[in-house]
């Protein structure tokens, strides 16, 4: 063996270990997608459409907040585990503070989502936009704000890019379904999930 090969091999092993570690610790449901191609890949592969009752899911969030149950964010269980099993990606969309007005720096992200949803391979599918917040502030306020913001994204996709409203639903879950439960106050919890939930008959 030539001198130096061992060092190089160690370096490679370290790199592989780091990549593997990052892949294992980064939650599957929190994977982002930057380009329409990435988004199409992440949204593809729905085998069986889930039976999601969005009204009931939303009501569970309302009831839990009203009952002041699971008050500690770090110990708060998710409202549903069903969403995590579905094809999806997460995306950071910026808004004006305390409003549902999309910031101009996020226009491109919305345009890219529209591009992805119009790709031929995704045309037969329906999608859910899920709004979240981090765990700062009041829970009921966060729930309302996340719903307004998810609705706002849907509105832009429908009115500006003419994505069929039949293909898009929106729900806000506030801080009741944290994207990163280990860090409830982290900004990553403000991201949105775009989830494939339906297939045209």
């Amino acid at each position, binding site marked *: 063996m030539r001198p130096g090969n061992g060092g190089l091999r160690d370096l490679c092993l370290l790199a592989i270990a780091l990549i593997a570690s990052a892949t294992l610790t980064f939650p599957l449901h929190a994977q982002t997608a930057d380009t*329409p191609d990435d988004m199409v890949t992440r949204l593809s592969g729905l085998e069986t459409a889930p039976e999601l009752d969005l009204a009931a899911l939303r009501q569970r969030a309302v009831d839990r907040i009203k009952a002041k149950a699971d008050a500690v964010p770090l110990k708060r269980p998710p409202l549903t585990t069903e969403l995590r099993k579905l094809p999806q990606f997460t995306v950071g969309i910026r808004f*004006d503070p305390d*409003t*549902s*007005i*999309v*910031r*101009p*720096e*996020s*226009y*491109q992200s*919305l*345009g*890219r989502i*529209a*591009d992805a949803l*119009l*790709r*031929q391979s995704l*045309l*037969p599918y329906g999608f859910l936009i899920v709004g979240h917040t981090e765990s700062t502030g009041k829970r009921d306020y966060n729930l309302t704000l996340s719903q307004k913001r998810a609705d*706002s994204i849907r*509105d*832009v996709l429908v*009115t*500006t*890019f*003419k994505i069929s409203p039949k293909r898009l639903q929106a729900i806000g879950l506030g801080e009741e379904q944290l994207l990163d439960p280990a860090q409830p106050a982290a900004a990553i919890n403000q991201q949105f999930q775009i989830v494939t939930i339906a297939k045209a008959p």
Partner: protein
Amino acid sequence: MTIGDFIVSDEVMVHGRSILLILTLAAPSLAAAETMSFGDAAAILGNSCGKDIDDNCRGVNFDSIRLKDCLYRNQDSVSPQCRVDYLRAFDAIQKHIAARATVARMCEYEVVKRCKGKAKEISKSLDCLLQQSGVSAKCSQAIGDAGYR
């Protein structure tokens, strides 16, 4: 032919040349606009008009009618770059939307004859259409412009 006719003809020629020049200069951007993706068009709007939207249209969402209308109403205040680019961006978005309607027209032969589908239900034939080799150039162009590939 009188001197007056010459002058009129000359004016027409000058106007004609001006129009030709404008068309020549505009042609690349028009061609680009036809195939611009939503993402690229939205990026132009966000990058060129971000500050102008903050200053003049705060509270207006990314709505193709309301935001365009707001920027139009505030044309005197918005930056020269935004004044040019907001029209270009919204135009590109509209063309991209219109291209989807064009596919049914441009690909009618392929849809009906090769895919045994109906032009009115183009989405049901897209899978077949994209797998076809030798579709007409206009059909292929329309599919690309619509962003289906």
